[in-house]
C-alpha cells in the first residue's frame, strides 16, 4: 500500500493568485488598511486592530487593555449603552473583540452591503468613548468572572500563567493578558480612560476588511469615516522592558488537587518574526512541526508515544507572530505509572537524539507539502486571512512579510532547522514545569 502513494510528493500549481486578492493602503492620518477580496458569499468581516495590548500596559494595571476592550461595548457620545452590538445584531450580523499581548481587535461580520454602517460605528468609538462609573463597576465584575472561568477554575491555565511568569524575567509578556486578579480588582475609570487616550487613534490602528467588497469602495468609506479622525501625535513608541540575558534554568512545580492528569511543559525563549528577517522564525516554525506537529509521525510522538510508550500525548508549538521575543514550547503527558522526572529525562533524550541524527528528509517534505496545501485550504476562510494580516501588522510585520512567509517556509533546509534548534535549546533560557496533584499523604501530615 505504501508504494501506491510513494510518488505523491509533487509540487502544487502556483499560488500567486491568492496575493492578487489583497490590497493595502494608508490613510493620510496614518491609519493602515488591508482589503482581502472573497466574492463567494455576500458577507464582509470588518476589523480594527490597535497596536496596543497587555504588554503595553503601565505597571500595576495589568488587565486594563482587556478591561477597556469590554468597555468599548458600552457607550459613546453618539451611541447608547450596547447600541453598537444591538445595531449589528438587528442587521443580522455578529460582533466581538479580543485582546492579546500585542494588540486589541474589534470586529463585525455582516452582510457586505452593511459595511458602511459598521464602519461608521467603529470609527465613532475610536474617538468618542463615554465612560461612566456604573459601567465600570459591573464590567469589572464581568472580567473577574471571566478570569474565574478561564483561569481560576483551570489548573492547567494557572500552571501556564506561572510558566510564562517564570519565562520572562523583565518583559510584560510574563503577565497574563486578562491581568493579575489583585490588579484587576483595582482597575478604575481613570486607568481605562488613560489607556484609551494614549493608544486609540487612527495612526495606531490597522483596518482589515475581508469579503465581498471592492477595494476602491472600501478606501472611499475608510477615508470618509476613519480619515476624518485626527492622528494622535503623542502615540508612545512601543519600547517594552526587554529581557536581560537569561542565565539560569528555571523550574516550576505547580500542585493543585484538581489535576487529573499530570504533565510536563518546557518552554524556551525564542526569536520572533521580524520585518524582512523571518528566516530564523521560519526554521523554528518547521522545527515545531517536525517535533510535535503530528500526533503520529513527529519526532516526539514517534519516540515517546510509539517507541518508548511512556507518553499518551506530546506536542510542540511556536508562533513567530510577536512584537518581541516569543516562546517555543513542548508538552509531554506521561503514561500511567510514568513519573514526571522520567518523562522529562526521555524528552531531553529525544531532543538530544534529534540534534545528533538530524532531520528526516521525508518528514520535512511531508511538512512542506502540507504547508503548501495549507495555502489552498486557508483560502476557504476569509476570516482567518483577516486575522493573519491583523495580527502580523500589529506585531511589527508588513504586508510584504506576510506574503513572503510561505516561500520562506518552503526554503527552510535541514541544516537551518538543526541550527535553529541548537540555538534554541539553551537550558539557561528555559522553564521546565510540572503540573501535578499534591501527594495524598501530605494531607495526612496537615
Amino acid at each position, binding site marked *: *500500500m*505504501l508504494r*501506491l*502513494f510513494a510518488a*505523491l510528493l509533487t509540487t*502544487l*500549481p502556483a499560488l500567486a493568485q491568492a496575493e492578487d486578492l489583497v490590497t493595502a493602503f494608508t490613510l493620510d492620518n496614518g491609519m493602515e488598511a488591508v482589503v482581502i477580496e472573497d466574492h*463567494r*458569499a*455576500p458577507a464582509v468581516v470588518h476589523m480594527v486592530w490597535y497596536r496596543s495590548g497587555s504588554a503595553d500596559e503601565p505597571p500595576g494595571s495589568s488587565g486594563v487593555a482587556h478591561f477597556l476592550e469590554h468597555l468599548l*461595548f458600552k457607550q459613546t457620545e453618539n451611541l447608547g449603552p450596547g447600541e453598537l*452590538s*444591538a445595531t449589528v*445584531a*438587528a*442587521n*443580522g*450580523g*455578529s*460582533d466581538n473583540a479580543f485582546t492579546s499581548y500585542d494588540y486589541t481587535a474589534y470586529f463585525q461580520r*455582516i*452582510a*457586505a*452591503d452593511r459595511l458602511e454602517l459598521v464602519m461608521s460605528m467603529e470609527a465613532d468609538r475610536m474617538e468618542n468613548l463615554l465612560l461612566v462609573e456604573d459601567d465600570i*463597576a*459591573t*464590567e*469589572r*465584575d*464581568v472580567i473577574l*468572572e471571566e478570569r*474565574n*472561568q478561564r483561569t481560576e*477554575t483551570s489548573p492547567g491555565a494557572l500552571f501556564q500563567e506561572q510558566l510564562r511568569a517564570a519565562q520572562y524575567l523583565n518583559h510584560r509578556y510574563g503577565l497574563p493578558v486578562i491581568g493579575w486578579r489583585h490588579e484587576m480588582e483595582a482597575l478604575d475609570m481613570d486607568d481605562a480612560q488613560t489607556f484609551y487616550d494614549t493608544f486609540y487613534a487612527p495612526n495606531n490602528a490597522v483596518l482589515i476588511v475581508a469579503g465581498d467588497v471592492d477595494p476602491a469602495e472600501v478606501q472611499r468609506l475608510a477615508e470618509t469615516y476613519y480619515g476624518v479622525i485626527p492622528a494622535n501625535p503623542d502615540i508612545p513608541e512601543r519600547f517594552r522592558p526587554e529581557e536581560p540575558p537569561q542565565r539560569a534554568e528555571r523550574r516550576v512545580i505547580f500542585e493543585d488537587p*484538581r*489535576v*487529573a*492528569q499530570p504533565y510536563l511543559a518546557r518552554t524556551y525563549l525564542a526569536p520572533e518574526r521580524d520585518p524582512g528577517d523571518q528566516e530564523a522564525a521560519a526554521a523554528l516554525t518547521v522545527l515545531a512541526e517536525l517535533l510535535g506537529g*503530528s*500526533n*503520529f*509521525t513527529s519526532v516526539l510522538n*514517534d519516540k515517546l*508515544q*510509539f517507541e518508548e*510508550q511512556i507518553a*499518551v*500525548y506530546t506536542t510542540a508549538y511556536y508562533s513567530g507572530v510577536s512584537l518581541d521575543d516569543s516562546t517555543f514550547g513542548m508538552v509531554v503527558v506521561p503514561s500511567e505509572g510514568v513519573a514526571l522526572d522520567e518523562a522529562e529525562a526521555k524528552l531531553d533524550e529525544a531532543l538530544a537524539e534529534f540534534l545528533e541524527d538530524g532531520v528526516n528528509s*521525508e518528514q520535512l517534505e*511531508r511538512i512542506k507539502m*502540507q504547508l*503548501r*496545501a*495549507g495555502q*489552498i*485550504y486557508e*483560502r*476557504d*476562510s*476569509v476570516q482567518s486571512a483577516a486575522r493573519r494580516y491583523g495580527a502580523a501588522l500589529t506585531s511589527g510585520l508588513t504586508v510584504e512579510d506576510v506574503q513572503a512567509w510561505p516561500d520562506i517556509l518552503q526554503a527552510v533546509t535541514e541544516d537551518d532547522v538543526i541550527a535553529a534548534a541548537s540555538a534554541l535549546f539553551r537550558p539557561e533560557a528555559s522553564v521546565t514545569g510540572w503540573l501535578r496533584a499534591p501527594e495524598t499523604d501530605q494531607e495526612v501530615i496537615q
Partner: protein
Amino acid sequence: MIRILSVLLVLAAGPLRAEVDIQEITSPGGITAWLVEEDSIPFTALELRFRGGTSLDEEGKRGAINLMTGLIEEGAGDLTAQEFQATRESLAASFEFDAYDDAVSIGARFLTENRDDAIALLKLALTEPRFDEDAIERVRAQVIAGLRAEDKDPDDIAQETFAFEAFGDHPYGTNESGTLESVATLTRDDLIAAHSNVLARDRVYVSAVGDITPEELGALIDDLLGDLPEAGAPMPEPVPVGIEGGVTVVPFDTPQSSIIFGHEGMERDDDDFFAAFILNTILGGTNFETRLMQEVRVNRGLTYGIYSYLVPKDHAALYLGSVATSNDRVAETIEVIRDEWRRMAEEGVTPDELQTAKTYLTGAYPLRFDGNGPIASILVGMQMQGLPIDYVNTRNDQVMAVTLQDINRVAGELLDPDALHFTVVGQPEEVETTN
C-alpha cells in the same frame, strides 16, 4: 446513471445576492448525497454522518463506539497507524472522526490533485481498520486520560450529572466515552462489533462542497461506501426527560460554580419549532442582546456569559442553559434566571423583540454559508434533521411567518420556571440540593 435534483439557493442579504446551487445526487450504487460545486479553490470538503452514534453502544460496552471511532485512523489494510498517517500527511489530506450521541461524524478535506488517493486511503480506514492491539492500548489510554480529566472539570461534571438526572440508564444519561471501568474491559471483538453496528449504508448521510462534479462524486461515494454493510444495529427507543424542578449541588473545591440548567425541550419536527427557536433567540441565544445576557451579565455583572439552547436529540428533546458565577453569587444568579424564565412564560416577548429577532435571524442565515467546509456541514446536518433540499430557500420565510401570538403561546407552553432544574458544581453559598 446519476440522478440529479437541483435547488438554487439565492442568498439575499440586502441588494447583494449569492447563489449556492445545492444538487441532490443519487449515485449509480443508490447512495444519496447533497453537493455544491464550487471550483474556485482546488479542494473538496466531504462530510459523512452515520446516524445512531454512541447511543448504539451495546449493554455493558459503554464507550465501545467512541473507542472504535478513535481507532479508525490508527492503521488500516497493510498500513500501521504511523504508516497510515504518514501517507495521509504526504497527500495533505485531513480526516476527522468524531463520535456523538446521535451520530458518528467523518469529515474529510482533500486537494483535487490528490482526490483519488485520499479517498482510497479513507476507504481503507472505513472498511479495513486493523484494530491492532498496540493501537487499542494507546487510544484506550488516551480515552482514560480524558475521562479522568472530565472527572475533575466542573463543566464536565455539571453536564454529566444533569444528563444522568434527566436520562438515567439510557445512553443519553451516561458519558459517551464510557466509564473508567467499561473502557478498561473493552476488547478487540467489541470494537469490531461497534464498527459493524454503526458504519452501515442504511444510516449514512453525505454532503460534498468544492471542486468536484456530480458524476465524480457519485463514483467517489460508491467507491468509498459501497463495501460497507447494508444495515447496522437498530436505533434506541425514545426516552422521557426524567428531571424535575429543583437544584442539585455537586460539591467541588473551586472559586466559581459551573451551572447547567434546563427542562424538557421541543422536537425538531414540531410545528412550533420555529416559534421556539425565535423565543430562545430572544431569551438566551447566541448574541449579546438576549434577556439572560442583559440581566445576568450586563446589568448585574454576575457572569462572563450565559446562554440557553434548544437541544432536539433523536430520541428526546431538552431545553438547556449554562452559566458560571462566583460561589457567593450563585443564589442570586439562579433567582434572576428563574425570574426571567417566569417573566417570559407569563408575559411573552414584545413586538419589538420579535421584530429584532427576525431581522437578526434572517440576516444572519446567509452568513453561515461562508466556505466549503461550513456549507458541507450545514448540508449534512439538514439531511440528518430530515429537512427538504429547498429548506434553505424557505427557512427565512418560516422565521418571518411566526406571529406574536404563536411565540407567546409557545412561551407559555414550553417554559416552565417550576420545572427548571439547576445542577451546580462548586461551593455555592446558601444553595443546597432540593428533595
